[in-house]
């Protein structure tokens, strides 16, 4: 059963349609990555799934009592906002010290409870935001451009960690990225978005799909090989097909 399911979703801002005819679902334990160029509606899709943005048409259904763990692209903590890692991890729960320490160890940023959030590097902040999200044992972990500001090996490490988390917690993972090669190979399923779903399927299928090539050009195949996801094991869900649709 799908944890989150969008059917025929349409979303617009000021009468400008940014997403249309989007059918999308997330099942337990899978890693789904949404890729697409800037302005393709990736962030809007996350806004819809979290409930920030309402649909103009279509439906959004979530399984009862689904817990979301959201890792934003950025948070509004600047120099005017004092916030320790400890305080941040208490949103919205009140975990004890041990739980917080463990979460920080899991994300690879231990002994940081007393650090000021505003003074962390991009990668450190990303880890702290991930730690906060996993403290609530989410059913769905959502990440918006999680590796922005990380270099390629940093990004690869980050996705490795996401995979490990998925194995340990059994949660579904939904990621939005324009960081194509690395992210795709860490996914079970890739959705290529450009106002509508252009193509979807396994990373291998999507990266060779003409729709994907049309959006991102060639030359991604070599980079994909840098970090080949081990697909020897099988997952319950099979999306080996590539759903094609028309391009303007």
């Amino acid at each position: 059963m799908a944890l989150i399911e969008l059917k025929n979703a349409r979303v617009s801002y000021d009468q400008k349609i940014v997403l249309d005819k989007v059918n999308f679902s997330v099942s337990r334990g899978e890693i789904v990555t949404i890729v697409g160029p800037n302005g393709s509606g990736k962030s809007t899709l996350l806004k819809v799934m979290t409930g920030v943005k309402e649909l103009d048409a279509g439906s959004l259904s979530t399984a009862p009592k689904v817990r979301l763990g959201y890792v934003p692209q950025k948070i509004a903590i600047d120099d005017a906002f004092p916030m320790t890692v400890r305080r941040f991890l208490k949103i919205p729960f009140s975990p004890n010290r041990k739980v917080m320490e463990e979460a920080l160890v899991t994300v690879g940023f231990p002994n940081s409870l007393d650090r000021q959030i505003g003074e962390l590097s991009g990668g450190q902040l990303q880890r702290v935001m991930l730690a906060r999200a996993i403290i609530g044992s989410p059913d769905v972990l959502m990440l918006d451009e999680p590796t922005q500001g990380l270099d390629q090996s940093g990004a690869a490490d980050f996705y490795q960690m996401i995979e490990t988390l998925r194995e340990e917690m059994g949660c579904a993972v939904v990621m939005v990225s324009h960081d194509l090669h690395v992210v795709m190979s860490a996914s079970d399923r890739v959705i290529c978005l450009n106002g509508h779903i252009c193509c979807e399927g396994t990373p291998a299928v999507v990266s060779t799909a003409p729709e994907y090539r049309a959006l991102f050009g060639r030359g991604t195949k070599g980079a994909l090989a840098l970090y080949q996801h081990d697909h020897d094991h099988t997952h319950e869900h099979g999306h080996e097909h590539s759903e094609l649709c028309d391009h303007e």
Partner: protein
Amino acid sequence: MIDDFMLRAGLAGLSLASAAGVLGCFVVWRRMAYFGDALAHSSILGVAIALGFGASMLSGVLLVAISLAVMLYWLSQKGLGVDTLLGVLSHGALAIGLLVASLQTGIIFSLEVVLFGDILALSWADVALTAAGCVAVLAVLLVRWDKFIAAVLNPELAASIGVSASREMLVVMLVLAVFIALAIKAVGALMVSAFLIIPAASARQISKTPEQMAVFAVVIGAFSCVLGLILAYYYDTMVAPTIIVCAIGCFVISRLLPRPA
């Protein structure tokens, strides 16, 4: 022995400083200083309308400030550039307020009181109303505190834990409108933003968490208020500006202190 009017001013000032300290943190975090200014300027229109209809100053200012807050919220939800609009609305309300006031004959409209407040002229009824209003403002802020923090951080993060950031921001804007209406008579339209921002900005330097910042802002605001009142009493200066100068003193000192490790 403390004079009665000083006691009233002190109580009103401490109430306002408490509400302003907590509310001011959100103004600083969300960069709403200009929004606070717009609301404060619009209060002059509120005063003029209240005088015209023979209503209380508070009700006139409340009406105008809340209307403006709702209008700005609505415009910001539509994604319009709020910064310029704020400028238009803020000074528009100021100009219209002064125009309406000047049209009224036979009514003494003390611009000085509206702009700078007259905390020494408050009656016991004013003090009671101010204190009750500030308690209400604080109650709303404290009850919704965790939601506000999440809403300030990131709208999707807030939504993921069941908090509507836009709704919480509307609440903050309305609370700000109510606070400004409460504060106008005591501290005036030009000074009220300073009451909100300076204690919170001073508290930032010595705080590690949002909660600490709110508490320190209240303490700094209350201290400035009491010190300002005493200085104004002995040196016969205008009260609200004296309080603000004390707050600015705190701000300068806080900047010289090292951030807590």
